[in-house]
C-alpha cells in the first residue's frame, strides 16, 4: 500500500514537473534526483489501471505531494519522558495514526527508560544525530533540555512540544492546560465536600515528583481552587508514579484524618482509589487524573469521585500534523499552546 502510494506520488511529481517546470534550485535538484527513481517506479506502476484514480488521489494528496515531491520522507522522533506510563503509550498511538494518514513520515518513538533529564538530553542528541527532521518532545522539565534543543534547532531540526513544553520557542505546544485541569479537579472536590456538609478539614495531595511541570501545574491549579476556603492542604507527598507507594501514602493521609485526597497522575490516582476503597467509611473523597481500566472501575464503584481524563492521543496526532506542516512550510506555527483538554469522568459518565 505504501509502495503504491509512493509510486503514485512520484508519478504526480513527474506530472507536476512537466506542468510547472519546477519552482527553485532546491526542488529542481531534488526533483531531478527523484526523477530517476520515479522513472523506474512509474514504469512499474504505470501498468496498474489507476491512471484516473491517480489524478483523484493526486488531488487528495496535493498537500502532502509538495512534501513528497522529492520522494523524501520526514524523519520525526517522539521523545517522551519514559516508555512505560500509559499516557505516552497512548500518545504514541495518536502519533502513529497521524503518520499512517500522512504517509510521508518515518516515525520513531524513543524515550529514556526512566524519567531522567540527562537521559532525555541524550535521546534528543541521538535523534539529531540520527537525522531527525522534527522532534516531538515531552520535556521532563522546562529548562533542562533547553541547551540540547538549541543545538537541535541550529542543526535545522523542528521542535514541537507535546504534554510538557520547555522554555524555548518552538512550533507550538499541544498539551493539557494542567493548571486549569487541576483547578477543575479541585473545584469538583470542593463542591462534593460542601455537598456532604464538610466545610473544613485536611486535604492531601499525592504527586509524582517535584520536577515534572505537568504534575506540578496540576497541583498548583488544585491548590488555587481551595484559596479562601477553610480547608488545610497538607504537605504534598511524592510517589514517583508508583501505585503501591501511592496507596500507602493515601492510607496514611486517611489515618491523619484527611477528608479529601487528590492524585495528580495515573499511579497516584490508583493508589488513592484503593486506599479510599479499603477505608470504606465513605468519609473520604478522592479525585484523580488520567484514565485506565482500574481507575474507571474505582470511579464506577464510588471509591473515586471523578477523574480528569486527558487526551494524549490528540496531543500526538496534532503534534505530528503540526510538525509536518512546519517542515513543508505550510504553517510554521506560532509557538502558542493548544489545549487538548480534559474530560471530567464521574460515575455518570462511566458505564
Amino acid at each position, binding site marked *: 500500500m505504501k509502495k503504491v502510494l509512493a509510486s503514485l506520488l512520484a508519478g504526480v511529481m513527474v506530472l507536476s514537473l512537466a506542468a510547472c517546470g519546477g519552482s527553485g534550485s532546491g526542488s529542481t535538484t531534488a526533483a531531478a534526483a527523484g526523477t530517476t527513481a520515479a522513472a523506474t517506479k512509474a514504469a512499474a506502476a504505470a501498468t496498474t489501471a489507476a491512471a484516473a484514480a491517480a489524478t483523484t488521489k493526486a488531488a487528495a494528496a496535493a498537500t502532502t505531494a509538495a512534501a513528497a515531491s522529492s520522494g523524501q520522507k520526514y524523519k520525526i522522533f517522539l521523545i517522551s519522558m519514559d516508555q512505560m506510563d500509559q499516557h505516552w503509550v497512548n500518545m504514541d498511538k495518536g502519533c502513529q495514526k497521524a503518520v499512517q494518514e500522512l504517509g510521508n513520515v518515518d516515525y520513531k518513538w524513543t524515550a529514556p527508560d526512566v524519567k531522567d533529564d540527562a537521559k532525555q538530553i541524550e535521546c534528543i542528541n541521538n535523534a539529531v544525530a540520527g537525522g531527525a527532521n522534527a522532534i516531538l518532545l515531552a520535556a521532563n522539565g522546562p529548562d533542562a533540555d533547553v541547551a540540547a534543543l538549541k543545538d537541535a534547532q541550529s542543526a535545522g531540526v523542528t521542535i514541537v512540544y507535546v504534554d510538557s513544553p520547555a522554555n524555548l520557542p518552538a512550533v507550538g505546544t499541544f498539551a493539557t492546560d494542567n493548571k486549569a485541569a487541576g483547578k477543575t479537579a479541585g473545584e469538583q472536590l470542593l463542591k462534593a465536600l460542601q455537598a456532604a456538609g464538610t466545610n473544613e478539614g485536611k486535604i492531601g495531595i499525592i504527586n509524582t515528583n517535584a520536577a515534572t511541570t505537568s504534575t506540578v501545574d496540576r497541583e498548583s491549579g488544585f491548590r488555587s481552587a481551595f484559596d479562601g476556603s477553610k480547608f488545610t492542604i497538607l504537605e504534598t507527598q511524592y510517589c514517583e508514579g508508583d501505585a503501591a507507594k501511592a*496507596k500507602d501514602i493515601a492510607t496514611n493521609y486517611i489515618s491523619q484524618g484527611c477528608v479529601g485526597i487528590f492524585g495528580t497522575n495515573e499511579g497516584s490516582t490508583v493508589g488513592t482509589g484503593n486506599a479510599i476503597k479499603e477505608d470504606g467509611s465513605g468519609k473520604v473523597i478522592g479525585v484523580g487524573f488520567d484514565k485506565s481500566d482500574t481507575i474507571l*472501575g474505582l470511579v464506577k464503584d464510588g471509591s473515586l469521585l471523578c477523574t480528569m481524563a486527558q487526551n494524549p492521543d490528540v496531543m500526538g496526532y496534532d503534534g505530528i500534523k503540526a510538525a509536518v506542516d512546519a517542515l513543508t512550510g505550510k504553517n510554521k506555527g506560532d509557538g502558542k499552546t493548544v489545549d487538548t483538554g480534559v474530560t471530567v469522568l464521574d460515575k455518570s459518565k462511566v458505564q
Partner: protein
Amino acid sequence: MEKKTQASPFKRMMAIRGMGQVITAAIGLIILMIAFSILNSSFFGGRNIGNLLRQIAPTLITGIGQSFVLITGNIDLSIGSVVGMSCMLSATMMTKGVDPLAAVIITLICGLAVGIINGELVARFKLPPFIATLGTMTIARGIAQIANNNYNTDSIGEGAGATAFRNFFYYAKILGLYNTIWIAAVIWLVFNFILSRTRTGRHVYAIGSNIDAAKLSGVNIVSTTTFVYLVSAFCSTVVGMIICATSGMGTMDAGNSYEMYAVAASVIGGVSTLGGQGILLGTVMGAAIWGVLQNGLQFAGAPVAIRNIVIGIIVVLSVLMDVILRGRKPHYQPEKADNGPSGEKAK
C-alpha cells in the same frame, strides 16, 4: 511499646555475632518512634501501627532476600525488576482469565528462574555479581514491559478469584494483623531458621567470610550461591504479588529501586556489604526503621527534600558504623577489664 529483646540472658544474646548492630538499630528505632509520635499524636494510633507494619512488610521481605545475598559477599540488583516482572506477569495472567492460583505458581516459577540465572552467572561463570544482576535487572524489567504488550494491565477485577488473591496478599486480616504482615513473619521465620540453624546457613556465612577457605573446606560454592539468589528471587516474586494485590492491577514500573531499599534495610540492621556478617533480626530492624521514616516523615509533614536528606544520612551513618566496627574484634567486649585475658565470653 514493645522493645525487641530476646528472652535469653543478656550475655548469651550479646555473644551472637552481629547482635551489637541490631541493638543499636533497635534503640534508633525506638527513638524515631518516640520522636514521630511527639510530632504527631496520630502516628501512634492503632490504625497507623497496623498500616505501618503492613508498609514495612515488602521492605522486610526483599530485605531478607538481599541480606542472604549480601552475607555471601555478593549483591542482587535485580530485586526491583523481579518485583515488577512478578507483578506484571501475575496481573496479566489474571486479567486474561487464568485462575489466580495457577497464575501465582507460574509467576513463582518465572521468578525462581531469574534466581537460578543469577546464581549460575555469578558462581559458575564467575561474573561479578554487580554486572550479572545488572543484566538480569534490565532483562526482567523488559519482560515486565512486554508481558502486557507495553501497557499496564487492566484491573484484575472483582471476581471471586481476584478478590481472594487481593485479600490473601494484602487486604485481609488474621487475628487483627494484616495478611501481609503474617506473610513477612512466616518468611522471616523460615529463612532465619535456615540461616542460623542449618548447614546451608553456615555455608552462606562461610562463603562471605572467606570464599577460598570455604571452598577448601568442601562448601559447594555454586549451589550455595545459587541458593541465596533463589531466596532473593523468591522474596522479590512474593513482593511483586503483594504489589499486584495492593493496586489490583499490574504496573510496568512496579518495584523501581526496591533493591536499594533492600540494601538499606540490610545495612542498617548490621548486614555487611563486604559479606560474612549480619543476622536477619537486623534486617527486621532496618526495614522497620526504613518504614517508620517514610511513614513518620509524612505524618510530621516534612517536605520531600528533608525526608530524602534524613533517610540518606541515616543510611550513611549505618554503613559508617559497620565499617568502623569491622575493624574491631567481632565479639562484643564489655567494659569490665578483669573478665579474663581476651574478654571473650565462653558460652
